[in-house]
């Protein structure tokens, strides 16, 4: 890839391997292994306790709770990347910049994405690695139908101006970076969670769930299209 096409921010994380489809598959498998490593020992311990001493039921239940809670906490961490920022300046003073920023964002995306953003606060963006859902301070990548990658990425908070940006501009920042270098974008972002879409869906805010559904539908139609015209 020519240097001009590489996201400038990638230079700040030069030690990271550039994220591509193979990298994603590897990371996805590592996350699955990690989940198994959390669940199996606790589940196994609970079973063993019950076999050895049924009176140890309370301890076995604690083990099972751990086996359930730890993966849930990871999934919650993934859902948190799409959580909108708290706006202390909400109100009349903040309304006009919000509208202007959403107007600019609307100019960057198509009608359907605009409508979905109005309903869910998320922008759906098809990419080469999969379908993205972009929020104010993070993005979720649906890579195939069986795995989502939740990335924490935002306008650099070390910049003084970053704190004052309205929500539409925050999303537009991420969207433009994503569009200019998708792999670079995924490289700069911090991976917060990878796992099955249903695990993320349960932890997402209710109003955001239609965006995940729309992203999966897009992925389905793309896959069908690719099957019909492989070249």
């Amino acid at each position, binding site marked *: 890839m020519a240097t*001009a*096409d590489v*996201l*400038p*921010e990638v230079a*700040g*994380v030069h030690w990271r391997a550039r994220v591509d489809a193979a990298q994603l598959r590897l990371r996805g498998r590592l996350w699955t292994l990690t989940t198994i490593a959390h669940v199996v020992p606790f589940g196994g311990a609970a079973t063993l306790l019950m076999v050895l001493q049924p009176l140890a039921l309370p301890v076995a239940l604690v083990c099972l709770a751990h086996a359930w809670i730890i993966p849930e906490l990871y999934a919650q961490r993934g859902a948190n*990347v799409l959580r909108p920022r708290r706006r202390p300046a909400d109100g009349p003073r903040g309304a*006009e*910049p*919000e*509208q*202007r*920023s959403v*107007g*600019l964002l609307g*100019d*960057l995306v*198509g009608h359907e994405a605009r409508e979905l953003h109005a309903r869910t606060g998320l922008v759906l*963006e*098809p*990419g080469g690695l999969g379908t993205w859902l972009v929020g104010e*301070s*993070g993005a979720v990548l649906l890579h195939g139908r069986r795995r989502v990658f939740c*990335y*924490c*990425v*935002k*306008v*650099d*908070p*070390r*910049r003084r*101006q*970053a704190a*004052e*940006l*309205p929500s*539409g*501009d925050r999303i*537009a*920042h*991420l969207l*433009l*970076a994503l*569009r*200019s*270098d998708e792999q670079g*974008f995924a490289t*700069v*972002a*911090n991976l917060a969670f990878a796992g099955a879409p249903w695990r993320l869906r349960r932890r997402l805010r209710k109003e955001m769930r239609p965006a995940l559904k729309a992203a999966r539908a897009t992925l389905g139609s793309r896959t069908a299209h690719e099957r019909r015209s492989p070249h």
Partner: protein
Amino acid sequence: MCRLIRMDHTGHSTLAEWTPDDPAAVEAAVAAFRAELDRGYLAMVSTGPGHAEHVRELPVEAELVIMRLPISGG
């Protein structure tokens, strides 16, 4: 009419407007563009649906040039 805008606390601010055949307006736009680069902004141009490009010089023919702040992993 081409526009140079910066995403900021107002939603966005228009920094310059020009037509490619107006040298004075282009010069003013280039100056505004460089000033934003010096402030640490990055310049983006849409290059079709779903595509954008990072530019280091003002593309005089581009209809809309957007200045954004760098991003980072959270």
